[in-house]
């Protein structure tokens, strides 16, 4: 790398990491100040652990993200298998378009549109507030599923199409062929898709903001409420913890992806030799 390229990269990464470094450092600040570091302390982490409402919202977020991940992974994987085998061009184009919509539409429109529908349907049934855990769950599944499909579909397309056919020729039912042959092949895609869905759901604020209600508060919504007032380093402590947890999750997904790639290239080498 040329020196100018090195300097430029350093500036850009400096810009990208400045707020994160500030956050990490000030989460250990002894005083309340977010600009003067007066001494190291675990105080804010301790205070965070005593904050019932925040812990409750962490629990809510995890429950929501886990439920949304399970539903969107199962539905998304099945959908990818179906889309991969679709013969009707029209149906395929329609599926591609609806999969694109939640990813290209601004979050605020996804959120507003779901909220309007929930409120309308709720009114039909005479409910005063129709937003609750389940409306949020629907919203999260709606924006997570396309990402699962986009992870699984390429794996299905890369797969040797003769494999499931061979299994069926040897007496497997289509279901059995799918479970024994196709599923293990596309597993890495399913896992990365699931991890993506989980992190997207954990992190989502805008869509949750419009579809939440009835006292079910997730962490990003709580953070939004906290940043309306003056914030203490407690929130930074929280951010630091979330940051490392998300990082661990994504490193795991990277690792799985790498292993899968290694395996694939080895298989290819073997095939070439024979």
């Amino acid at each position, binding site marked *: 790398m040329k020196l100018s390229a090195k300097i430029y990269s350093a500036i*850009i990464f400096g810009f990208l990491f400045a707020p994160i470094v500030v956050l990490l450092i000030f989460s250990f600040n002894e005083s309340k100040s977010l600009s003067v570091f007066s001494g190291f302390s675990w105080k804010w982490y301790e205070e965070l652990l005593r904050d019932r409402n925040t812990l409750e919202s962490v629990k809510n977020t995890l429950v929501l993200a886990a439920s949304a991940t399970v539903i969107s992974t199962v539905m998304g994987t099945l959908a990818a298998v179906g889309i991969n085998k679709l*013969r009707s061009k029209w149906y395929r184009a329609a599926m591609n378009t609806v999969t694109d919509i939640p990813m290209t539409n601004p979050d605020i429109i996804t959120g507003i549109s779901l909220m309007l529908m929930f409120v309308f349907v709720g009114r039909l049934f005479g409910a005063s507030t129709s937003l609750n855990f389940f409306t949020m769950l629907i919203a999260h599944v709606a924006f997570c599923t396309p990402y699962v499909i986009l992870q699984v579909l390429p794996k299905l397309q890369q797969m040797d199409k003769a494999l499931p056919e061979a299994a069926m020729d040897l007496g497997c039912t289509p279901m059995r062929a799918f479970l024994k042959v196709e599923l293990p092949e596309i597993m890495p895609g399913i896992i990365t898709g699931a991890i993506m869905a989980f992190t997207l759901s954990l992190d989502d604020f805008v869509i949750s903001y419009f579809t939440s209600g009835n006292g079910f508060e997730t962490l990003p919504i709580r953070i939004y409420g906290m940043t309306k007032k003056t914030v203490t380093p407690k929130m930074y402590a929280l951010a630091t913890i979330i940051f490392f947890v998300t990082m661990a999750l994504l490193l795991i997904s990277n690792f799985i992806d790498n292993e899968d790639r290694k395996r694939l290239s080895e298989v290819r080498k073997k095939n070439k030799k024979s």
Partner: protein
Amino acid sequence: MKKSCISRTQGTYRAALAPYSVWSLLFVIVPLVFVAYYAFTDNSFSFTTENITRFFTATSNMIQDDGTTTEVRTYLLIFGRSLKLAVISTLACLVLGYPIAYIMARAKEKTQKTMVTLIMIPMWMNFLIRTYAWMTILQDTGIINGILTKVGLNPIHVIGSETAVIIGMVYDYFPYMVLPIYSILAKLDVKLLEAARDLGCGTVSVLRRVVFPLSMPGVVSGITMVLIPSISTFYISQKLGNGKFFLIGDAIEGQYVANNLHFAAAIAFILMLILLVGMAIVKYVAAKYVYGGE
């Protein structure tokens, strides 16, 4: 026998797709229809175009810097401002991000992987907290001013300005610009660059006439992925703009909080239409540019 077997498997695959088909009809398509429905109805759900006309005609008095007030079209002004800040942020992301994407694509494979991870790390931090952290860095008693006064310079006032909002947008959406461009540049055939050089192109014209046109698909998806969230954001402007710069997202959120769902839907509907048209134009122009209008 064979035929029935194939159609039976087709049936199984269709059944696998069925839940998602129904789901996306109910929770992707129908909600969008509801946006249009609410946008064109009043509180008692009878047809009206009033919400749409309100967007284009509502006026308010704005206090100018010199103390005089002028009457402005509220929502057109807000929309114009959103568009301006989003376009500036997108261009800034492109200008700052393209070189880094290029540097990444030309680096050794190991370095490339590390750099991609480094670009992605900030996205793992919650969006609200990232933005808030910038607020503490930029505020009048923040770190930047702390350093400036220590060195003996005058403190600067950034929070509450358009610049602060732009910094926030560029920071939050920067990876969305770099990653698509990088993924195209990394796949670029080096032989093409060598050929161009052999045919007498200098470094600059190789970049301008070969690399840039070929990276156009990445640039287009980068622009889309930055422009759409930055035009519709409502948190960055509230925090870094000190609430002084109402954007289109703030307008939607404000109407939602005030329980004016029909007007909120009307603004969302207009935003959606404009984005659809805008994206079609971006794609059309890019296609023309790449293939020379063929």
